[in-house]
């Protein structure tokens, strides 16, 4: 669009912090009426936070949001919706208990003169959208029974109900099939011609180029580029997103290959519910193998299945023996450990003492009831704290008085003590400060010297390239590439992760 058009949305210098985490530092974006803008960014870029501030889920800490020239103070979704900003959420905002039609109008149901819901009007809208978007469901079916791709379409129909000025689509096409997406885009283009503006968040470049005219790129909470897609190649997009040039592959050091026969851990054709399919990997003794990919491509579920927290089918061979992992306790007993990057939900006992956090796995393995010696526990804990260089007032202070990085060190310390055969890591240094990060990583490296194998999933490519000898890349539930030797470089990794490399290959054929 050439300049001079009226801005329907003007966001300037948006700031949002979650405690010590600066999700958005300076994000700006302006779009005009009838524009379809892509919002791009890698893991942790802040794009999800950005749209959630616009939709009212999160309150901004700084910056300004103007809609059609009017300054908005968005305090809740009600403000956004009433002002004409509608969002189709990545996690979906549908109410499982209500029907398809009811979900489309929820919160703003059409009312008859006598005060009751105008069912006819509601059904009319539902049937119209079912027709236009090709939703495979009857209007009166309960939403919880419907498959994910159709739920996504219903979510969009719901967002469009109030005839918004701005529609935000947050990775909503992720679960949809190609033909559904095509049909959706065709319909939305009609609406756009009628004056609707769209912000399209997606990691699928194919769709971005197909649907959008312009793109804004976020990197680490800052909007770094506004581009016209006609004039930009995928490589340029990747460059802005990651700061890395894809062109010109450099040669990296060749690492020693580990043959299958020396493998400590062998996974063969594992399926994890609907999250991951046909996963086959191997990890050698003392080897650090990386797992890369955008968020939610199945790698997290895969690791949890290996740890016995999610059910799976497939074969696992550990140190030559075929095993079946039934539960985390079982996994621990068999010599597998697990560290999650989501320490708040899955790792740390924040109100409990440092020593308890470190020693919990030991404690849990003991036969009840055992009285623990306070002194011995404290000594054990302090020894580990020293090895890890944990900064804390003592072994007895609650874990939540430590910084994030130190808390994560405690969790690493838990397994340091336990010495498992295989340690599974799901983004263990997420949200951890640089120094602690380095300390943790060198610690992990040390642990491999005694033969411990590590399977390391990370959203930070730099880190992966530094610590891992080989990297498996997950994309939409499958492993699309194993990067080793010369291939293990940042440019190829970035591209593979975004599916660009694959798409480029597909495009050529």
């Amino acid at each position: 669009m050439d300049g001079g058009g009226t801005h329907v949305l003007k966001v300037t210098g948006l700031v949002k912090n979650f405690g010590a985490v600066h999700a958005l530092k300076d994000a700006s974006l302006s779009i005009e009426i009838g524009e379809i803008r892509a919002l791009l960014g890698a893991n942790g870029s802040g794009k999800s936070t950005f749209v959630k501030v616009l939709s009212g889920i999160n309150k901004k800490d700084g910056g300004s949001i103007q809609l059609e020239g009017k300054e908005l103070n968005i305090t809740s979704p009600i403000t956004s919706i009433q002002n004409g900003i509608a969002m189709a959420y990545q996690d979906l905002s549908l109410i499982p208990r209500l029907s398809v039609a009811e979900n489309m109008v929820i919160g703003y149901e059409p009312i008859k003169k006598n005060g009751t819901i105008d069912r006819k009007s509601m059904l009319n809208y539902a049937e119209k959208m079912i027709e236009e978007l090709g939703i495979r469901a009857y209007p009166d079916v309960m939403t919880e029974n419907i498959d994910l791709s159709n739920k996504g379409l219903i979510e969009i129909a719901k967002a469009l109900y109030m005839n918004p000025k701005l529609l935000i689509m947050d990775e909503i096409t992720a679960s949809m099939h190609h033909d559904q997406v095509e049909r959706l885009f065709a319909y939305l283009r009609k609406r756009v011609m009628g004056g609707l503006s769209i912000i399209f968040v997606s990691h699928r470049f194919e769709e971005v180029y197909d649907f959008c005219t312009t793109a804004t790129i976020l990197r680490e909470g800052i909007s770094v580029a506004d581009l016209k897609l006609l004039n930009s190649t995928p490589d340029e997009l990747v460059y802005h997103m990651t700061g890395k040039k894809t062109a010109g592959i450099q040669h990296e050091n060749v690492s020693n290959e580990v043959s299958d026969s020396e493998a400590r851990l062998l996974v063969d054709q594992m399926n994890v519910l609907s999250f991951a399919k046909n996963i086959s990997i191997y990890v050698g003794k003392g080897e650090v193998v990386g797992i890369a990919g955008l968020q939610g491509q199945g790698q997290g579920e895969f690791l949890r299945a290996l740890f016995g927290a999610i059910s799976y089918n497939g074969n696992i061979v550990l140190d030559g023996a075929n095993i079946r992992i039934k539960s985390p306790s079982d996994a621990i007993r068999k010599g597998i450990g697990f560290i999650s990057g989501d320490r708040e939900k899955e790792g740390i006992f924040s109100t409990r003492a440092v020593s308890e956090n470190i020693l919990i796995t030991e404690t849990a393995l003991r036969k009840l009831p055992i009285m623990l010696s306070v002194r011995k526990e404290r000594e054990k804990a302090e020894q580990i704290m020293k090895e890890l260089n944990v900064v804390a007032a003592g072994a007895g202070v609650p874990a939540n008085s430590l910084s994030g990085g130190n808390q994560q060190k405690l969790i690493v310390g838990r397994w340091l003590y336990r010495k498992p055969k295989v340690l599974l890591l799901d983004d263990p240094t997420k949200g951890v400060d640089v120094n602690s990060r380095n300390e943790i990583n060198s610690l992990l490296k040390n642990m491999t010297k005694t033969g411990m194998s590590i399977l390391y999933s990370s959203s930070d490519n730099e880190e992966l390239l530094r610590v891992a000898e080989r990297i498996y890349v997950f994309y939409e539930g499958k492993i699309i590439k194993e990067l080793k030797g010369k291939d293990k470089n940042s440019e190829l990794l970035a591209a593979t992760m975004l599916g660009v490399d694959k798409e480029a290959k597909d495009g050529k054929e």
Partner: protein
Amino acid sequence: MKKKIPQQTIILVGIIVVLLILGSIINPQFMASMNVANILTMSALLGFIAIGQTFVVLSGDNGLDLSVGGVMSLGAILATTYMSGQNKNFLLAMLIVLVSGAIFGFLNSIGIVYAKVPAMVMTLAMANVLTSIQQIFTGGYPKGGPSPIASAITTTRILPFLPGIVVLWIVMIGVVHLILTRSSYGKQLYAMGANKNAALLTGVKVRKIKIITYTLCGMMSAFAGFWLCAYNGVVYVNAGSSYIMPSVAVVVIGGTSLAGGKGSYSGTVAGAVILTIINSLLVMVNTNEAGRFMMNGFLLIILLAIYTKQPKNRQ
């Protein structure tokens, strides 16, 4: 490791002091040994039953045991029946009481852990069953009475204001403290309550701990019933029903979070004393039953509003 007295407990102790002063102003006899002894005894009974409740609430996952009154009542009835006023039956009766409590606690845990019935619903239903069992067992007229030993322990005063039962309570407080802070069970209990997911992922045997917790709660409730019988001498069906809500209240007031994983029994102890003193003050001021209900309910709401704010359930 230096034990830090939680700030909350200090506040609670402060409240106790204020209440005691208030009491003395209203009635100079309030601080007399006899009265203090009574107050401490009533606190002890409440304290016993709150042991189990503390454990259950600590276990997290919306843990709650509303059958504690019923188990306590049954315990009291079994105690009075099997002691029959004879010293030789003392130990046997105690054994029967403890086992019965454990059985019902265990049944609760089965429903909660395996059938996944919410704790509140399961224990509420169990409370009903217990009423019927009491009625059947006694035919409506409990017979017997406490052994002289039991009564003696309850009422004999080691110090002018310290009856034997309170000494027993102090011992129990020590035992509970040890269990909660030093045993592997206690550590796992707190871990579970603090972060259920993390507990599962670190090998904590969540199911097993839950079963043990509810079973222990049943046992302690029955234990409380035993001493209720010893103290009162006369027992009737559902004698313990007025202890249910207070048992939850004192746990909450004592600083244990309803979400689990945070709190201590020492807080509960302070809470038990506070609630008993308040009740005692109300009786002294000649409030009738109705007034006491209103006061209890009102105070509880205030305390809950202060202590149990849940975070806004937003993304």
